């Protein structure tokens, strides 16, 4: 027996073979606040306190906790010295996490809070270094590390009765209004810090089966035979499906339907994560055992593991359409003439690694056929309506018979746009008529979902002696892997942004998006621009050096500004805050550094450490662009209690959409923010907001919410004007009330007025963003761009080549900062993710087989990597944006990598042209003589 005290309550439970403490807490006691992020003791999400000591419950045998006291997130509030929050009892740590903005997607938060609580019990007054040491292995992919650190410090003070939790100092927007542009806390933050927040795997259903997927583990082959008879006979197995069971759609895909739901006999396996069979069984152990009983034979084929190889004429063609997904071209002026006219020409080639989103919540889908014979799919998805269509197509059902119920998303970053387990879960639920959960473990997640594209980029720039760019030419090879996913779109963005945020009369870019036998590549924060920015910004520094020019001056001279024409022929009419971003970063830099910040300096504390700054800029489109219709629907509905709900299917994946929509609608309706509730991501209850991608939701869904609120006001005016026999313009809405010829009425009364004439107090608005032009046609390819500049200070150990980023100064032009607190942590998180892209992350394959198939082999930045981040918000509003706002999700991350690599060059003379940075190559460069021949 396991005798265990959990959150002060005694339990006596049967022992179960192989059971870990996290399983016991989550699945036996229903304490789902404790999360499982990796199952391999790497991420810290599962941290609970065992006799006051933080342990990783995902790998701590449950029986070993017998006789001990366990504290989980659900029990923390009771430890609070005082009641502190209006929504309910919170511990000071929980309150501080909300107040400081440390909560983003929320999945890691219970682990962060419990690890921090363990620290404060042992060390009531921790230093910054103590906090970093304690939280070293509790990972936050949204990377709210600065906010977390601040929260822990202040909570500690409160626990020592030496202080209180103060709001984080974040300036209001320069365009601040009543609520828009002023700091607000997330509506869902309370549930995220208490563990009440539900992610897909936290749901429990009667009779739930476990679904598992048989992966090929061969990168390229033809399936010769699949034998499932042994698996079917295993007791507890409820269904085994193969491609032969697919009666309707055979493939899925976001743009191109080229990704097999299951690969059948005689069909081509294109990567190691391809699925050949799916199983539903009573337990996970039975499902796993059954997977091993499925016998598949393959006729293995030569592996194409490189996009350049894929383009060779004799290469095997992986798809009927060939290996070329798309040749993307940008043409402006005449680059040959441009180079002839240049005084200086610089060219260089770069390689970027495939990288993984490593969201801490692995993919999970639960499907069930409900009482009405409809399919419900519970999933944290970035595109619920796309999931609905793809699931319906696979079932051969009308879309309306499928309901996708979006759960909270424990980080997405572009990695939860494609179908993962949704279709498999639905097929198994249909077959078994029981609810089925398809939860990936970290290994499967790493193996299967699309990555950031590995690229090879050649850049050639020509300039006049004074630094003016004349001609820029780039050639990109993008490895889009086995399936298209969003590869064409991503690499189009990479290509159109490959000239950088600069004006050049002559520009030419060619990109070859190639299929290979590597895992598919798709959307990942930055959407291709992360890669091309690294290439062009490195080259700009090389050009500055060759010209003997200050790198900031060079960028200022060529920066896009109002009136500039981009490489795709778009004239920028407004909202180009790049120069101001550069100025903001530059003045902070000059303030901090005497002399040239780009010169190497020996550290005062340690003569073996060399420091230098590096600089970079970036731009990134907001919205889909390129001629794609870009629209979002939103409902606004008034309730009897006078509160308003705004609804759209768009996704909250940590970026703060809930708060943004709440503020926009509250602003327009003149309501306090708390009076506006937000419901997202349910295809029955919320209109289609389109994909949560391309930094588009603040702008597109924000506009939908704004216009729905405007339309609702019109409806109110119409209804009341008729009833009270006045003109609609005699009806005023202000200060949370409606005034009819001066007589005030509450929103609750307005609700009654609607009901009394049998009208529903709700409106729907479908917002259509300004029309854009496809690439190649000139004109407006995008309706808005965001801009940024960053400077990074690095410290390089000249003995070992180790690199540490000390400081990042960032300025981002976001149009209008709708929620300055949310933006502040998004800026910091973006910079840390960019730091990971530069220094820690490489998703490695060898001949199509995945080497980094565990989180232990794929490292993402931890709090110990988190530098000091100084952020400036630049606000050049977009006329069509909601209150002037444009996208911000991606731009915050893009300039970080080249700012760091340029700093490394400035410190050491070593030009990083292959990501991630290899410290050995830096050491070799510094100690060239000694490395010869070794």
């Amino acid at each position: 027996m396991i005798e265990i005290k959990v959150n002060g309550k005694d339990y006596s439970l049967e022992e179960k073979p192989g059971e870990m403490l996290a399983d016991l807490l989550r699945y036996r006691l229903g304490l789902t606040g404790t999360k499982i992020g990796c199952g391999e003791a790497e991420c810290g999400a599962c941290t609970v306190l065992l006799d006051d000591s933080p342990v990783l419950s995902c790998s701590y045998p449950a029986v070993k906790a017998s006789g001990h006291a366990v504290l989980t997130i659900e029990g923390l509030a009771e430890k609070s010295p005082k009641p502190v929050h209006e929504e309910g009892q919170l511990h000071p740590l929980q309150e501080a996490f909300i107040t400081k903005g440390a909560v983003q997607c929320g999945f890691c938060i219970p682990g962060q809070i419990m690890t921090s609580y363990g620290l404060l019990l042992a060390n009531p007054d921790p230093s910054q270094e103590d906090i970093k040491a304690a939280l070293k292995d509790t990972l936050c992919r949204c990377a709210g590390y600065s906010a977390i650190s601040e929260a822990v410090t202040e909570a500690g003070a409160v626990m020592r009765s030496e202080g209180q939790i103060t709001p984080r100092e974040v300036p209001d927007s320069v365009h601040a209004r009543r609520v828009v542009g002023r700091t607000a806390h997330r509506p869902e933050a309370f549930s995220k810090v208490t563990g009440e927040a539900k992610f897909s795997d936290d749901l429990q259903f009667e009779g739930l089966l476990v679904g598992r997927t048989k992966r090929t583990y061969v990168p390229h082959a033809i399936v010769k035979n699949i034998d499932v008879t042994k698996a079917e006979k295993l007791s507890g197995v409820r269904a085994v499906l193969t491609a032969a069971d697919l009666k309707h759609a055979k493939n899925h895909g976001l743009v191109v339907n080229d990704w097999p739901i299951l690969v059948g006999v005689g069909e081509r396996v294109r990567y190691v994560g391809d699925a050949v069979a799916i199983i539903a069984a009573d337990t996970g152990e039975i499902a796993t055992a059954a997977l091993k009983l499925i016998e598949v034979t393959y006729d293995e084929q030569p592996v194409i593991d490189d996009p350049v190889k894929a383009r060779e004429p004799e290469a095997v063609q992986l798809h009927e359409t060939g290996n070329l997904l798309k040749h993307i071209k940008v043409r402006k002026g005449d680059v040959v003439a441009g180079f002839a006219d240049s005084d200086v020409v610089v060219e260089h080639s770069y390689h970027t690694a495939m990288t993984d989103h490593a969201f801490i919540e692995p993919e999970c889908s639960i499907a069930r056929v409900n009482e009405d014979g409809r399919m419900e799919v519970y999933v944290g998805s970035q595109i619920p309506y796309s999931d609905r269509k793809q699931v319906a197509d696979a079932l051969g059902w009308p879309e309306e018979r499928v309901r996708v119920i979006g759960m909270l998303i424990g980080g997405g970053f572009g990695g939860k746009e494609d179908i993962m387990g949704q279709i498999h879960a639905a097929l198994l639920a249909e077959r078994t008529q029981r609810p089925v959960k398809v939860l990936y473990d970290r290994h499967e997640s790493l193996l299967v979902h699309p990555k950031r594209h590995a690229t090879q980029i050649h850049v050639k720039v020509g300039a006049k002696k004074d630094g003016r760019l004349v001609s820029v030419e780039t050639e990109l090879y993008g490895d889009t892997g086995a399936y298209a996913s969003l590869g064409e779109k991503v690499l189009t963005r990479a290509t159109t942004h490959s000239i950088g945020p600069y004006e050049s009369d002559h520009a030419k870019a060619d990109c070859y998006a190639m299929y290979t036998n590597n895992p598919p590549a798709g959307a990942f924060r930055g959407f291709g621009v992360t890669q091309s920015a690294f290439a062009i910004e490195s080259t700009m520094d090389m050009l500055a050096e060759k010209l003997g020019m200050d790198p900031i001056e060079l960028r200022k001279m060529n920066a896009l500004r109002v009136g500039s024409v981009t490489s795709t022929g778009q004239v920028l009419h407004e909202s180009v805050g790049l120069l101001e971003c550069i100025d903001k970063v530059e003045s902070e830099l000059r303030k901090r550094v005497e002399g040239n910040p780009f010169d190497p300096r020996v550290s005062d504390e340690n003569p073996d450490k060399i420091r230098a700054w590096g600089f970079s800029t970036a731009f990134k489109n907001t919205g889909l662009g390129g001629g794609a219709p870009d629209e979002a629907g939103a409902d606004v509905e008034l309730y009897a209690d006078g509160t308003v709900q705004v609804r759209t299917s768009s996704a909250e994946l940590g970026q703060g959409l809930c708060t943004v929509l709440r503020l926009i609608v509250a602003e327009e309706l003149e309501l306090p923010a708390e009076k506006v509730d937000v419901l997202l991501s349910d295809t029955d209850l919320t209109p289609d907001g389109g994909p949560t991608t391309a930094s588009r939701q603040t702008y597109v869904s924000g506009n939908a919410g704004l216009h729905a609120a405007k339309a609702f006001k019109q409806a109110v005016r119409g209804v009341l004007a008729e009833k009270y026999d006045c003109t609609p313009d005699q009806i005023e809405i202000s200060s949370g009330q409606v005034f009819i010829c001066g007589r005030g009425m509450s929103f609750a009364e307005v609700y009654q007025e609607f009901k009394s004439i049998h009208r529903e107090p709700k409106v729907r608005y479908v917002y259509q963003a300004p029309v854009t032009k496809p690439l190649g046609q000139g004109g407006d390819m995008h309706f808005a761009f965001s801009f940024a500049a960053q400077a990074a200070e690095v410290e390089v150990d000249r003995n070992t080549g180790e690199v540490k980023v000390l400081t990042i100064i960032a300025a981002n032009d976001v149009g209008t900062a709708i929620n300055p607190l949310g933006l502040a942590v998004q800026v910091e998180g973006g910079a840390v993710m960019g730091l990971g892209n530069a220094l820690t992350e490489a998703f490695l394959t060898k001949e199509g087989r995945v080497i980094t198939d565990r989180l232990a082999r794929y490292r993402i930045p931890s709090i110990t990597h988190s530098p000091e981040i100084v952020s400036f918000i630049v606000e050049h509003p977009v006329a069509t944006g909601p209150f002037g706002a444009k996208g911000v999700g991606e731009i915050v991350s893009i300039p970080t990598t080249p700012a760091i690599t340029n700093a490394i060059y400035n410190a050491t003379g070593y030009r990083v042209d292959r990501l991630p940075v290899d410290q050995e190559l830096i050491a070799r460069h510094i100690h060239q003589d000694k490395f010869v021949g070794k």
Partner: protein
Amino acid sequence: MPTWKYYLLPTSLPQAFQYIQSHGPSCLIVSGGTDLLLEIQQEHRAPVDALIDVTRIPELNAIEVRDERLFIGAAVPLNQVSGSLLVQQHGQALAESTGQIGGPQVRAVGTLGGNVGHALPAGDGAISLLALDAWAEVASAAGSRRIALAQLYKGPGVSALEAGKEIIVGFDIPLQQVGQGSAFSRVMRPQGVALPIINMAAWLEVRDDHITEARLAVGPAGPVPKRAGDIETFIQGKTLNDALLTEAKQVLHTCVQFRSSPLRATSGYRDHLAEVLLKRVLSTSWHRALQSNRGRRQE
């Protein structure tokens, strides 16, 4: 198949051996389990009938001075090893290395016995124990024996313990005397598995500005953690200064050979880092030894 059927927590050595006997070959001895359980889960090892967890056995949980040596129980969690004042006093290299293994949650559960028993060629705990001249106490149903730490290893991931029969009870190191000092250092890379590219520990005894005795351990310089005996001999009787360090680096290359590991480090880089670490650990141990000579409290 589940990772284990029975997870047993004996509270004495005899009980542990009784469990071992009754479960026969399909049992494994586990301590903190931070590596072993994952290895089974990830199918690098077969599932077992029984896991015999030794962390509740009192003998394995002691840190105390016995017979002029410091005994550190094999099942003491790493964070208690690194936080122990006795360990900080008598084996700074060990305190430093155990403070760097894994993260805080892992150190709260993982043990020194597990780190050594796992037998990695560059186990941080093992490298520092080697430099501290540690001996292991190993128990079996028949009794217990002492074995020099270096003898505990057979190959990468393979210890010389009789699998499923022997249990490491603990390690003992000589008490640190005036004029002695030790240090540990390592270099990691930010990508990939969180194991050191190279690690090194030194122990020095200094009298009248001369090294009277030295021990140096280097990993991963072969299939098992090993001492660099030539260096130890070379620096003995000498004063640590830049000139000696320069010469010592040359000696190091003759006695320690590194191999290249793809994606982690070339042998050339390891050779280079070995020089860097040699300087670090020798200088730090030297200064610590001098400080203790002056009767100051160890840092």
